[in-house]
């Protein structure tokens, strides 16, 4: 109880609870994890919501993200500045979306953003190629990567503009029931 009091105020916890898919305990645990990443940076006391950001390089060392091929993109997507420096709020946000309880639609939106490497709100061929390379350890030859991307485009691009819009993506996701299984906490 004492720990709870010093880390967050009740108000803060309630706000976290209302805005994310986590319970009080999980928020505190997340704070613990966040603090683990950079003990000298993150204070125990968050009651006055200090403005602290942990750089991308530290966050991707978490076991939940360490092996994920898209870890950099995930962290970037959820950071407010887009460069992967996450405040605690961003951090909670990220795990809230990734957790089991979050609805599929929400996950779809963020997944689209994660795949959209060049942030042009379309998944174009370059994005796909990057994704393929990341997923296959870069062991496919360039032609194979291109072939795969072409195939995906062919199947998923309904309107024929050679890039996947969000609705194309959504449509494709709806056919893949076990998409984005969750990680963690």
């Amino acid at each position, binding site marked *: 109880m004492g720990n709870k009091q010093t880390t967050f105020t009740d108000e803060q916890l309630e706000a976290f609870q209302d805005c*994310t898919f986590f319970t009080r305990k999980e928020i505190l645990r997340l704070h613990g994890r966040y603090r683990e990443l950079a003990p000298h940076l993150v204070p125990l006391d968050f009651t006055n919501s200090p403005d602290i950001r942990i750089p991308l390089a530290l966050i991707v060392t978490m076991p*939940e993200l360490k092996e994920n091929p898209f870890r950099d993109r995930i962290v970037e997507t959820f950071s407010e500045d887009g460069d992967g420096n996450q405040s605690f709020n*961003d951090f909670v946000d990220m795990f809230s979306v990734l957790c089991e309880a979050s609805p599929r639609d929400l996950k779809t939106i963020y997944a689209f953003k994660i795949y959209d490497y060049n942030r042009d*709100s379309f998944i174009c061929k370059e994005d796909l190629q990057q994704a*393929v390379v990341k997923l296959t350890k870069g062991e496919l030859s360039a032609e*194979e990567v291109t072939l795969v991307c072409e195939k995906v485009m062919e199947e998923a691009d309904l309107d024929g503009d050679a890039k996947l819009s969000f609705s194309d993506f959504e449509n494709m996701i709806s056919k*893949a029931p076990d998409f984005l299984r969750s990680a963690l906490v």
Partner: protein
Amino acid sequence: MDVPSCVQQQQQTEEVWTALLQDSPQQQGNLSALMSTFSNQGFLNPAYHDSETLELDKRSPSRSRHTNPYAGGGSRVQPDVYPTESSLDPGRGPWGGLPRQSWDGGHGIPMDLLSTHPGNPAWRPDHNHSSFQITTEAHYQQSLSIQMTSLPSGNMTIRWRGHTMRRMFQNTDPNLQLAENAIMAQVENEEIHLVRELVDMSTRDRIRAIRDLPLSFQEKKHIRSQVLSFMSSKKSRHFTCLGDCSEHVSRSFRRCGSNVRSARQTLELWQGTMKEIGGKFGTSVLSYFVFLKWLLMFNIFSFLVNFGFITIPQLVLDHSPNTNISFRGLEILTGAGYFNYTVMYYGSYSNHTLFGAVNYEMQLGYFLTIAVYMVLCGIALIFSMASSFKSNYVLADSSSGAWQLLCSWDFSITERAVRQRKNNLRIQLKESLSEKAQREQLTSSEKLQHFGIHLGSWLLSTSLTVGCGASIYFLCSYEHQRMSDSSSWSLLQEAETLLVPFVVSLMNMVVPLFFSLFSKFEHYSTQRRQIYALVLRNVLFRMCILGVLCYYWMNEVAIKYSCWESVVGQALYRLVLVDFIFLLLGSFFGEFLSNVVGTRLIPRLGVPEFDVARNVLEIIYAQTLAWIGIYFSPLLPAIQILKFFILFYIKKVSLMQNCQPPRRTGRAAQMKTIFTALLFFPFFLGALAIVGYTTWSLRPSEHCGPFRGLNSTFSVVEEWIDDLRQIPGSSWVVFIYQKIIRSEVFYFLISIIILIIVYIFWQVSQGRKQLIVHLRQQIVNEGKDKSFLLEKLQNLQKSQPNQRPKQNNNRKSKTRPHAEDLSSSGSSNSNAMVQVLLARQRAEEEEERLRTRGLPDPPPHQHLYDTSDMPQSSSSALALAMQARQRAESQTRGEYYSRAGFTENHVNYRHAAEEDVNSPTSVNSVMMQVMQARQQAEEEEEELKRMKRLPAAPQNPAPSSALIQAMLARQQAQNEYDDGY
């Protein structure tokens, strides 16, 4: 205007330009990003983000939605106000003016500009501000009333999502920071909308809605605090004390609820273990454990039901079991002997009535418990099967491979599985690539060969199945001959009873191995088919064995033994137990040994994989045994619970120690559907049929069990109904029984009705399928239309610029002096944007002229090149002018500074611009901007016509498409411009 701001603006300009001057697709991407930034709710609208060209269609609704305070004033007001604004506001980027206009419907000054520049309020007229306020307020009210009638949450989420998507994308693109201010007001509007909607919801809905918003936590918190403050202010106004109280109560309730939730989470069985498994082995292996857990829950339920409604009354009734037989230890395996006289089996239940507060008839209790349990099981299975079928199978498109890439990544895996997973994905992708090529190359002889192999393996597997079934039958009859119907068996006799279950379990373990060996020789075209074939063979095999056993029990055992139900119960007990032992052995030999062999002796084999399909079939088989046995041995679920519980841990340890993640993973969600379907269709229905047959037509044993002395178990119900006849108030039960349950006509009618309904639904689903095909075709067609139109536009554009060089010679010579000073730094990057810039400048000159109305020569201090080429005033050029004014003016100003030697950048641009006119290239972006200008151009034209300054341009009266209109406008502008020469 101060100098630094101008410099800053130029730098911003440069940023945008460098971004846009990159290669062509990149540019297109940037532009579309820009567009989508300004899309209001279009992000989720599939029609919208198909292309830039549809921007035109989007514009008209946006005009009606955002009431512009200047709309009434018409465009006449514009020229007066606009220059003032732009001169006072030089910090805005070149793009500030352009998309904004497109979004405000092409009307003069966008209101957001007014509202988002509090820094220089001096020029802002007061009445403007107030009118803005009023309009937006009215807008809120209006939309609020609409939302009241419509579904608030769905409405809101879609709109809000579109809004936030735009916001998110905007934040990520540095180029768009410039435009941020322009949409700020709109964002605020929507925020207030959202807050109002949220206030109207119940607490639970509100929390859910806030959680579902695709926003960052900071924004969510902001919205939440707004909602809360709004609510508290509203409440305090109306009823202070009551509001406070209810707020307090609801808050404490919520806290309590969340505590309960977290407590439930910690209590949930094996939660951590599940996470661990999912993390290490992926979702498909996890699905096995989830299934196991689900079955365990099923058994716990059935144990509770049976124990509560059958065993407890029996224990209350008669708690002195016949204990003249001592416990010998072997009973644990065989289930015979001592157990025979406990409540374990059917035989030891009595047919008495428990007299108490309520009379409890054991017969009826026994029968109804089993019946209700079976029905409940069936309903639960059907529902879980149907729902998972709906969500996982119907939507899934089996032919698609695209999901493999983007959706198949198992985000839950965290550890060593990852590298392998990447490998697997690579292999899968390669295979799917080669598969297509391979399929066409099959010759007819190869096809024949494949067919032969399939036929052979099917024959072989079927004969194996039949052989096993036959041998089991003979083994049973052999045992049948040796066994005597006595209550006390010798130890050896008792041990002999283990022979049949031993053989059955051995077969269950060995034969599937043969089946999987077959699949090595067969070459199925897809992995999926291979798995299906394997599963089908295994299912047939197990069904066959169970069928033979049941036939034996129903026909031979039922005649020979005096208390045959107990004997069958014992046999089932043995089967369950021996099966368990074999499962343990199987995971030891199958996984541990092959791990040792794979890692130590023959490294070629490698670490074994966890075969999900085989393991699932094993537990399905085990569950079927429990279902069959529920009538004969009501406490069998207890054994089953223990079995599954231990099995979970054994499998987990074996998995962690011995196995590697499966190399090929099916789609986990589909797998679960298949498991549930398998569990239901052959196995549960089979068990139900057997239990039903037993209760309906087999004669219960004479001297033991609750149904002793009855013709069949079901006649319990008949007797009960007969009893009910004497009770006056219950005639309706009798009626129902006689007219419905026992009447063939009723079943006949019911089945006909059900058939008709099924047929109708089938037709409906067929119709939907066709509709889907049509809609898909439509989408494809739309895409084709769009690309066709775009192509046409481009061709048109390309054919135009031939006339241009002539016009520009003049200007070039005039501007040369300034350009030459800095020609060394001139960039020769050819880009359409430059052209647009020029067009705007030209347009602006025209506009200046229009403003001075009739003055032949514009003020010479305004532009360097005003005197050089003064095109005839044209409607479309004017339209361009509206967009370009701001930019052009700042540019001119920049030019002054550049001459003074302040900065070179913008002069470079200008220089580049002049150069580029010589080699005009047409790029989409030009067209797009022209299109955006089109509407404005039309309005301007009206005015021009009135002023009779030039003959009315031929205007297409009813253009079929906005695109074509835009093309026309562009052409018109060009032609008129050319006519000037």
